[in-house]
């Protein structure tokens, strides 16, 4: 080559200079576990379905959601959304309205008639599910999708369990519940109503079932000893809520006193108000901050005119409807102690909402079972002491919510499916948790939370219309887009853009990125500027 004056070397590209050799630390892409997914009792891949919802792909979102939970429209109404409590956006402004988006997807699925995909082949195994509550329905759904033949035996006249007999219509309209139950039955699940199982081994033998999942719930009201006159009208909360589903509405009178501090007490008091009670009074032995009921439900009840007597116990119910109330005080441990001060309260009826017990009579004579504190012990595989009989929901030790029950159903189905094949289910390993500190929140645009509309107060006090409305398409889309995608790359191109050395290779839509370690100097800007914390620096080994 002819070279110009004073030039002795051929021109070359700087690519000959592998600056990657300077590096002492290297960046690696990783996926972390979003806190919402981590907190979900039903094990939903929340971030996964929000991602599809963000693009307006609602059916894809619903399909990802229902891989784990077959009841999104129910969940979007009754779930207490621990996901939102864990949401990292809560530390930035307000948590993403995951529950509201879930409801939108659930309602959209009902409106558009989306159906579950049927399994491609049958396993030839038969599984009995006892109880058509959230846990039983969830297990039936997951087992049916794996090709097992599932029959649900339900003692009551309708499917739904506590979703129907425990949660009032104003929180969960029955057409929504019916639509989601029917979609599960459409998978080929058999449902036998009014079919109480009195001896589980006998029923399994007669039906030729290979395994059983028990989810009978907790329907027996707990009692408290209250000396009462003959004509005092004392009811239990479960019976009151159950009778709301029948022809005859319960006769509660104009002054209704509810005894207890859980969500059921709130439900009964709000129901009484809607049935025309002029006074619905909850008597609770401790204070509001100690109440097991969720605060938003207490707040809604108070808005509707329900009254609460804090720090009070009922000592006696006399004829003519006079209740004797004793004032309580909290000791240094926060426990209520009697003060010896009494007052009276007039009531047409007293409803006891003191919790529920499980009817375990169907397990009589089953060897190997362990029953503690009125519930059945199960192992890590949700199996009872009797091989092939699994149990979940309110009848095993756990928090008693619809979402936990749905999670039990899924977990049990995974284990039953493995057990039927002679294997043990191994849950896939979990990623490390994505914390707020790993995010770079600068990159997220300011976006206020979308609020769901509430029914007018006057109609809440007089009808069983649904209290909380849903988001529409535009607001649901906006809300879904508030997701920060904690711990998982959403292809914002930041790492690709901010690298001073062009050492990030963009692999194209959906395929994320790769580091070019020939040139990466290990400066760490990509890690610092990754909005969602999906890159980490690790020390070079050599």
């Amino acid at each position, binding site marked *: 080559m002819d070279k110009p004056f004073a030039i002795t070397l051929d021109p*070359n590209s*700087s690519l000959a200079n592998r600056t990657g050799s300077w590096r002492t630390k290297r960046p690696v892409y990783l996926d972390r576990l979003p806190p919402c997914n981590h907190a979900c009792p039903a094990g939903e891949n929340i971030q996964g379905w929000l991602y599809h919802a963000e693009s307006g792909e609602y059916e894809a979102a619903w399909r990802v959601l229902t891989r784990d939970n077959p009841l999104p429209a129910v969940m979007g109404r009754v779930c207490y959304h621990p996901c939102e409590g864990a949401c990292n956006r809560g530390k930035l402004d307000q948590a993403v309205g995951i529950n509201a988006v879930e409801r939108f997807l659930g309602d959209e699925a009902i409106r558009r008639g989306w159906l579950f995909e049927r399994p491609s082949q049958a396993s030839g195994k038969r599984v009995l599910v006892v109880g058509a509550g959230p846990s039983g329905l969830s297990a039936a759904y997951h087992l049916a999708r794996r090709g097992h033949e599932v029959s649900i035996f339900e003692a009551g006249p309708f499917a739904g369990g506590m979703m129907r007999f425990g949660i009032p219509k104003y929180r969960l309209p029955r057409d929504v519940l019916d639509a989601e139950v029917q979609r599960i039955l459409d998978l080929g699940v058999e449902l036998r109503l009014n079919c109480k199982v009195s001896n589980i081994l006998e029923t399994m033998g007669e039906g030729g079932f290979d395994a059983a999942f028990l989810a009978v719930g907790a329907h027996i009201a707990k009692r408290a000893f209250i000396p009462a006159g003959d004509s005092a009208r004392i009811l239990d909360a479960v019976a009151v809520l159950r009778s709301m589903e029948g022809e005859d509405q319960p006769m509660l009178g104009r002054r209704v006193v509810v005894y207890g501090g859980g969500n059921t007490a709130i439900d009964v008091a709000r129901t009484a108000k809607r049935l025309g009670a002029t006074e619905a009074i909850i008597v609770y032995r401790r204070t509001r901050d100690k109440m097991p009921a969720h605060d938003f439900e207490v707040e809604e009840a108070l808005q509707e005119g329900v009254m609460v007597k804090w720090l009070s116990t009922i000592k006696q119910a006399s004829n003519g409807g006079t209740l004797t109330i004793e004032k309580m005080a909290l000791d240094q441990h926060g426990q209520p102690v009697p003060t010896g001060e009494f007052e009276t309260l007039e009531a047409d009826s007293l409803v006891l909402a003191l919790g529920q017990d499980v009817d375990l009579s169907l397990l009589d004579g089953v060897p190997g079972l362990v029953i503690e504190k009125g519930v059945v012990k199960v192992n890590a595989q949700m199996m009872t002491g009797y091989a092939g009989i699994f149990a979940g929901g309110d009848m095993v030790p756990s928090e008693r919510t619809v979402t936990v029950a749905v999670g039990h159903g899924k977990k049990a189905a995974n284990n039953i499916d493995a057990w039927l094949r002679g294997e043990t289910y191994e849950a896939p390993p979990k990623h490390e948790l994505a914390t707020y500190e790993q995010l770079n929140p600068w990159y997220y645009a300011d976006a206020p939370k979308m609020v769901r509309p509430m029914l007018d107060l006057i109609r809440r006090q007089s009808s069983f219309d649904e209290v909380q409305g849903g988001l529409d398409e*535009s607001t649901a889309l906006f809300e879904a887009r508030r997701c920060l995608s904690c711990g998982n790359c959403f292809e914002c191109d930041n790492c690709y853009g901010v690298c*001073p050395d062009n050492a990030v290779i963009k692999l194209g839509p959906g395929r994320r990125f790769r580091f070019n370690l020939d040139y990466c100097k290990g*400066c760490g*800007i990509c890690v610092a500027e990754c909005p969602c914390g999906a890159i980490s620096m690790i020390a070079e080994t050599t």
Partner: protein
Amino acid sequence: MAFQPVKFYQTGTFTVGNRLLDEQQRSVQAQEERSNSLNSGHRACQGCGEALGARYAIDAAMHATGNQLIAANATGCLEVFSTPYPESSWQIPWIHSLFGNAAAVASGIAAALRVKGRGEVRVIAQGGDGGTTDIGFGCLSGMFERNDDVLYICYDNEAYMNTGVQRSSATPPAARTATTMAVGAQPGNVFGQGKNVPAIAMAHDIPYVATATVAELHDLEYKVKKAMGFHGARYIHVFVPCPLGWGAASQDTIKLARLAKETGLFPVFEAEHGEVTSVSKIRRPIPVEEYLRPQKRFAHLFGQEPAAEVIARLQTIADRNIKKFGLLDAAA
């Protein structure tokens, strides 16, 4: 509920890319086929803000001109680290002559292109703050004054980094450099000196002057593209943190640029024909201390007894910028 039009996208234009944005709104840097005008293998330090700023700016200019671009480069880090003989990282026609004459060389290239009837080829001159605000300042002022058809881009890292961190007329007050040591009664660079070249450029009434930082890519690309829409002399002053010279962590380059803007110490604005036409508002107002603390060149302000008075003087400079340019929204 009141109707609210959905204009929100998860990350707006803060991130480099955003799959929810319209094609036209997406950045050049997000494209797989960006020109990478300054290629891998350059010898800039880890986390170099200047290398990043130069690629941002020149890629945007390449995109805006359909790759019809020639660049003249002043002596300095950018020249040294990109082109050690016989290698170069530049993937564009690029020329280096002397420290002080980049603006003059670019003016000459523009004149030659005009004579040859190659008006579609555009010219950029670029350099660091030393080559721009001190050594090349005469040539730069001449280029402005003649309104030569050149875009001059200054990558400002606030000192002569290539030769060992000596003070330039762009070094901020109180900063420690090799020539303004953190010793004596008034450690670091003195107050009341230095040059505001964007303001001087505006005083020449040239068609376009803008400031930008490596922390706001969309804004930087918008300004380069806009500058390429004008003919005549144009000036863009890009704030590029230097991990080595500032004594900062290499991963904090973009963070420091963001903090410089958010404190008000580096006002980001654009001006046409000598008049400011828009400013980039502060999004999350913060005190200057948050910007100063991570940098060792200001470490002497945060000893056992913090130099509250000096920090307050720096805060006064930021407050003056905020007031002068209206950097805060009334609501904020």
